[in-house]
């Protein structure tokens, strides 16, 4: 009899917990809006929304290389969990967000829940977007709803078990999502606070510059310590450890809005899209972001580190010839960056960083992002120099222009870059 009672209690408690869990994680669908009900926003609001979409880099993930803007379908490599396809955020009612009310859009941005009430995977960085103000989301919604509706069904996610269970995302949110707005810091300037709001919120810079834990969440205690994205190293923003010069806010602003700074180099890899977006954002907002980012770096590295150019004792005559004939035409040491905007390599962050990831990718795939805008340019050497020539050039450049230890990962990075297709 007593055993029975215990069993029944256990079952009841179990049922209760399941129900409580479901109630806790369940989100209702939000009523669809009909196309006739769409509000028409004024041009000023739409312009503000466009600026915010630019700062938020929305199109980078929600547009494929040859697809229509915001129509989604880009495969995001969410290893080790699988592949996630970005959603269509054009106002198409069937395949996009045309049936979404502003309330549904706001909930998605703040809580990571779609209109139908499904939990969204945090590949969509609502851990940052949650900081966006209702007013900004109003403008962003107005902008997206003003875009051309594109009927395009995106492929289904390809996630491994158990990550394909969406309910798990609810647990993820309990652990890692801090909802709500950021309290302004009154000890800082309004520009700094504005920058922080944009960088931590819609800009979601730390998505790429902060390492992630086992659950794919940003490690709060290593904020901006640098991370690997699509094989590229997103340098630490909390120290200038790999920069030849400490970054100033002015330098950052120029780099972010043009993709290049003469003391640091070019924004390449995934960062080139960010720079291209920010080149269209208002200078006021970019300046504010730069002020905040510059303040993250609290080291006191000398503003002018002596340029390295050491004789490389064991260099072969072949590598010296290749460096001279293929690299030094642009990367000269005369402080003359030329039309390719090629820095003396003693200034390049890619050459100074601990691993060869960015240097190898720059050599293999070049820097093509700014060809149409007169920005930095580097030709691709993949298949032109052999892999062993590329490896020896990388090793030579490292030895000649950085004070750091020899890279031991060059061949591994070349292989990895090939597997990933290299270019974002």
């Amino acid at each position, binding site marked *: 009899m007593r055993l029975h009672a215990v069993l029944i209690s256990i079952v009841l408690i179990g049922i209760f917990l399941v129900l409580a869990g479901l109630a806790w994680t369940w989100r209702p669908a939000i009523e669809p809006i009909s196309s006739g009900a769409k509000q028409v926003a004024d041009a000023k609001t739409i312009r503000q929304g466009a600026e915010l979409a630019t700062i938020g880099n929305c199109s980078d993930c929600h547009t494929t290389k040859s697809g229509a803007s915001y129509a989604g379908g880009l495969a995001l490599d969410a290893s080790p969990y699988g592949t996630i396809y970005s959603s269509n955020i054009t106002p198409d009612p069937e395949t996009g967000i045309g049936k979404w009310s502003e309330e549904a859009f706001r909930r998605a941005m703040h809580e990571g829940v779609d209109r139908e009430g499904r939990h969204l995977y945090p590949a969509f960085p609502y851990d940052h977007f949650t900081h966006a103000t209702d007013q900004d989301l109003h403008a962003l919604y107005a902008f997206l709803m003003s875009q051309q509706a594109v009927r395009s069904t995106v492929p289904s996610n390809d996630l491994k078990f158990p990550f394909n269970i969406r309910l798990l995302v609810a647990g993820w949110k309990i652990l890692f999502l801090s909802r709500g707005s950021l309290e302004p810091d009154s000890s800082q300037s309004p520009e700094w606070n504005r920058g922080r709001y944009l960088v931590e919120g819609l800009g979601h810079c730390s998505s790429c510059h902060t390492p992630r834990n086992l659950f794919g969440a940003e490690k709060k205690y290593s904020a901006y310590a640098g991370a690997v994205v699509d094989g590229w190293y997103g340098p630490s923003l909390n120290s200038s450890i790999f920069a030849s010069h400490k970054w100033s806010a002015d330098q950052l602003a120029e780099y972010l809005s043009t993709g290049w700074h003469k003391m640091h180099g070019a924004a390449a890899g995934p960062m080139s899209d960010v720079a291209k977006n920010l080149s269209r954002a208002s200078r006021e907002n970019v300046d504010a972001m730069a002020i905040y980012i510059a303040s993250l770096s609290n080291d006191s590295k000398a503003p002018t580190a002596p340029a390295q150019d050491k004789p490389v004792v064991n260099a072969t005559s072949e590598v010296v010839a290749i460096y*001279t*004939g293929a690299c030094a035409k642009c990367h000269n040491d005369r402080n003359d960056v030329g039309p*390719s905007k090629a820095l003396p390599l003693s200034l390049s962050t890619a050459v100074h960083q601990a691993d060869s990831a960015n240097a190898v990718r720059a050599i293999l795939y070049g820097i093509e992002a700014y060809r149409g805008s007169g920005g930095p*340019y580097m*030709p691709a050497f993949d298949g*032109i120099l052999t892999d062993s020539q590329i490896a020896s050039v990388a090793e030579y450049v490292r030895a000649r222009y950085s004070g750091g230890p020899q890279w031991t990962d060059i061949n591994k990075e070349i292989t990895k870059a090939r597997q990933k297709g290299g270019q974002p």
Partner: protein
Amino acid sequence: MTISLKVNGKSHEVNDDPSTPLLYVLRNNLGLHGPKFGCGLGQCGACMVHVNGRATFSCIFPIAAVAGREVTTTEGLMENGKPNKLQQAFIDEEAAQCGYCISGMVMRAQALLNTKPKPTEEEIRSHMSSNLCRCGTHAAILRAIRRVAVA
């Protein structure tokens, strides 16, 4: 330093600094004036040749890196002393205005057609984007490539 080069099927011994760009050797030592010096920075494509079948900026390709590989210039595309199909298409479409970029354009396009005889319009445009024409004859150049691509 003596370096052996194989250009358009013929072997040559070249005595020059190993960092010398392939372009200079082709033009000055071997008298092949198809490839042109444009920017010298791998930006414009006027110097483009094939190295092992791959379209390569010869102005930033030091001869030290050539060893054991085959180089082809626009002269090497000729068939029995006559322009090949692609070169003829450039002539037929009157793709050259000043003509300075054309050798590079032909080499770039030929490299694509060799690996992909029927490229799409998008593939042609994306492949050709590395080569610049300051006269602006791109439309005629694209027509010439399309002529061969669909033939």
